[in-house]
């Protein structure tokens, strides 16, 4: 702090000057303060102002805020794609979401296949192989490729009651009626326990097997697959199943035939077991 006597005097003069100059303002300030502290008075004075501002905001919103909101949305889109996907999802329908997911998967697989090829063929690959032999990862990759996924069984099951309407199977498993019943029970349980909108159970995976569930109004199709499906194969399975589900299936179920069971089996065999061997789901075969 400055102890200079000259400066102290100056400061005092300055204070007096301020006092003289600001006296009027002080009175006004006092008034203002009392206004502020009295809620009734405050309300009376501020209320109309807020109303007015709100009105302005309402009528001028687009012009005044368009840019800001636009920027906010863009920023938000960047950080929370998943969240937005969830919000849009019920509106656009799950088919679109599925399609988008599938496209991402296909893309990813193509990319990793590309990277794998680049890393393992050509000079680098050959040197790696010559020096280290085949790595565990390479082995796993090749094995996974070699083991083609295939459809083992297909069930057409009535929604809710779990009654089996038809099935085709490449191997004899336990009683298909029971499988259909238990599958429906599990499906009911899952859909009931995690109910959120119209979410249906779509896939169950266990070990190297998966059950793909396709829902229609009165029935659902359960496709049991062994082996790992590539995204491309899964897309193909979905496409093929939906094609069948939306045409032949409905026709057969609507027909008053006594042999719905048999008709369905024949059709299912054609749709899923089109290859003599172990009806693999290779899109190449059908293209």
């Amino acid at each position, binding site marked *: 702090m400055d102890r200079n006597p000259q400066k102290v005097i100056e400061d005092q003069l300055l204070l007096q000057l301020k006092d003289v100059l600001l006296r009027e303002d002080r009175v006004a300030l006092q008034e203002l303060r009392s206004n502020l502290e009295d809620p009734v008075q405050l309300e009376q004075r501020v209320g109309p102002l807020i109303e007015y501002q709100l009105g302005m905001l309402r009528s001028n919103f687009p012009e005044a805020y368009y840019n800001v909101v636009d920027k906010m949305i863009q920023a938000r889109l960047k950080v929370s794609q998943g969240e937005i996907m969830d919000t849009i999802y019920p509106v656009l329908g799950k088919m679109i979401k599925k399609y988008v997911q599938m496209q991402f998967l296909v893309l990813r697989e193509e990319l990793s296949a590309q990277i794998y090829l680049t890393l393992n063929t050509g000079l680098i690959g050959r040197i790696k192989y010559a020096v280290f032999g085949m790595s565990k990862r390479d082995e796993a990759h090749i094995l996974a490729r070699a083991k083609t996924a295939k459809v083992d069984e297909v069930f057409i099951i009535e929604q809710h009651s779990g009654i089996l309407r038809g099935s085709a199977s490449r191997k004899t498993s336990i009683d298909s009626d029971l499988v259909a*019943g*238990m599958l429906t029970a599990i499906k009911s349980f899952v859909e009931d326990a995690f109910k959120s909108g119209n979410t249906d159970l779509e896939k169950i995976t266990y070990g190297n097997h998966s059950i793909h569930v396709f829902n229609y109004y009165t029935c659902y199709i359960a496709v049991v697959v062994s082996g790992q499906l590539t995204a491309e194969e899964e897309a193909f399975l979905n496409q093929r199943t939906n094609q069948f589900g939306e045409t032949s299936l409905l026709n057969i179920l609507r027909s008053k035939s006594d042999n719905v069971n048999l008709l369905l089996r024949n059709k299912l065999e054609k749709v899923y077991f089109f290859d003599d061997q172990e009806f693999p789901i290779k899109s190449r075969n059908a293209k």
Partner: protein
Amino acid sequence: MLSKKIILTGSLGVGKTSLFNQFLYQRFDEKYLTTIGVKVDKKTVMVNGRELSLLVWDIAGEIKQDKVPRTYFLGSSALIYVFDLTRPTTYSNMLEDLKYLKMITPGVVIRVIGNKIDLVDLEKLNDILDKVPATIDFTTSAKTGENVENVFFSIGEELLDNA
């Protein structure tokens, strides 16, 4: 062959699972019942020369019916409501339960079963039956097997008549 879904329901401990096991082959492990709350089994019955396939769902007991997941009831053709003749708490909610069940599964065949008849003296039976608020269709014993087949048979008969 015609197939129908039947649901066993009623309070905890009344003997649903025992009745189920008495009537069916038990092809799934008991753990299914505790983990997902339901177990399904099948039996083919011959009713007046016609075959009918019954898919019976045993659901884990709850005190009140509206606690059971609603989806389990959907698509069923018949419903067996079981209570324990020796425990009044298992039939005190009966009217309310039946009303609820009829509402969520309109048009289904319903059988009301008083189980554990083997534990009840014949003199006491009439007193009990007086106290039960609804009409009883069968008294059964899952222990001795008394009347168990008849319950399913009578359901099969009515379902074939309606079919």
